């Protein structure tokens, strides 16, 4: 499966988790794609941690406003009813539990719902930006990531990289599976139509609890 098809599938599946009236923060990269798969007329309210709520689609070429960018620095728009604020208010919204769902990428996730996505010691240290606050503060944390990296599992028994947050992940969506984090461990809820439970288990280092399984809508 091409990377783009995998990513589109993940974003499309996560869009089903978002309902009208929810306040949602989409991380940079793959999570941003989720917005493209919301039904038209959707009333999901997107929060942009650089300082506003009511994040709208990219502007038409030539209509960019340099003062209106998303947390990745790209030109965006603000929908009618949007509101701007400073960084203290932005993170009061995030940390204070006023964001219903955050969708974040990950380098590693583990059986306890631990998440690592901000540094690889000695290699890549971009900084956590808003990710630690989002993971701790949002009511529901959905990880959007490809199931493996260069063939190696990313869903582990225990994260090896420095954590972004401890025990905060609620749901993991990959191109192969939808996995829920529960106090008992990781529960495999859905698998993609073009895979098998055995393949998902093979590509996952963590133990998966398997009861009833649905086929993922892709």
């Amino acid at each position, binding site marked *: 499966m091409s990377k783009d098809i995998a990513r589109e599938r993940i974003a499309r599946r996560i869009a089903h988790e978002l309902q009208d009236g929810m306040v949602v923060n989409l991380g940079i990269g793959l999570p941003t794609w989720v917005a493209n798969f919301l039904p038209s007329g959707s009333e999901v309210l997107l929060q942009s941690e650089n*300082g506003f709520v009511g994040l709208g689609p990219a502007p038409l070429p030539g209509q960019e406003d340099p003062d209106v960018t998303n947390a990745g*620095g790209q030109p965006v728009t603000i929908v009618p009813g949007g509101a701007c604020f400073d960084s203290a208010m932005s993170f009061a919204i995030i940390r204070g539990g006023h964001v219903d769902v955050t969708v974040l990428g990950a380098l590693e996730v583990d059986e306890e719902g631990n998440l690592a996505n901000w540094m690889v010691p000695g290699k890549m240290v*971009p900084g956590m930006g808003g990710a630690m606050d989002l993971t701790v503060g949002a009511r529901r944390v959905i990880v959007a990531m490809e199931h493996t990296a260069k063939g190696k599992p990313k869903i582990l028994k225990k994260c090896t990289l420095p954590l972004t947050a401890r025990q905060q992940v609620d749901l993991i969506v990959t191109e192969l599976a939808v996995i829920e984090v529960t106090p008992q461990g990781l529960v495999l809820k859905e698998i993609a139509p073009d895979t098998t439970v055995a393949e998902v288990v093979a590509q996952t280092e963590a133990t998966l609890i398997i009861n009833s399984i649905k086929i993922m809508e892709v």
Partner: protein
Amino acid sequence: MIKKLRTPSEALAEMPSGATVMIGGFLGVGTPETLIEEMLRKDTKDLTLIGNDTGFPDRGIGRLIVAKRAKKVLASHVGTNPETGRQMHAGETEVVLVPQGTLAEQVRAGGAGLGGVLTPTGVGTIVEEGKQKITVNGREFLLEVALQADYALIKAHKADELGNLVYRRATRNFNPLMAMAAKTVVAEVEEIVPVGELDPDEIITPGLFVTYLVKRGRKDE
């Protein structure tokens, strides 16, 4: 009326090497580029810079990093400026990475006379190293202490002559917080209007926080 309008060089004339300087903006959006220009022109160095991120090599705080003016940087994100990472790994510049919401509260606390705040962010991660953990109602929090600076260089959209400020869209970010937390606050603005033209309800930063105003793009003769 006490006049606050200055040229960039007048506004920053007394900034010494070794100063702690907060600079507003988020990936360069809402960063006072004219003031950064002036800092580059001066030979101020060994600075401690506090900002959300280090921008890009050619934009925002990143230009000061490239020019090696910082001995220490506090930021939530440095990924868009590879030079910051290089200096960090080479041991040339000390880089302290701080969760964005924590940094916002630390700056706000500095301005508000608070000693610090208790945040759940960073508990169970390397961010908690060296910090006091305090349990409130059975939940663990990190004590994050207030930050203050010698200078805050901020960017606003409009000012009146008293220094009352309004911001536009996503440029607000850390600017109003930093305006509270420094001894000398220099605001770079697009436009200066007469006193009374801004409605008291629309002002975000009251002029009492602002030491000097500089017009964006203003060059010294």
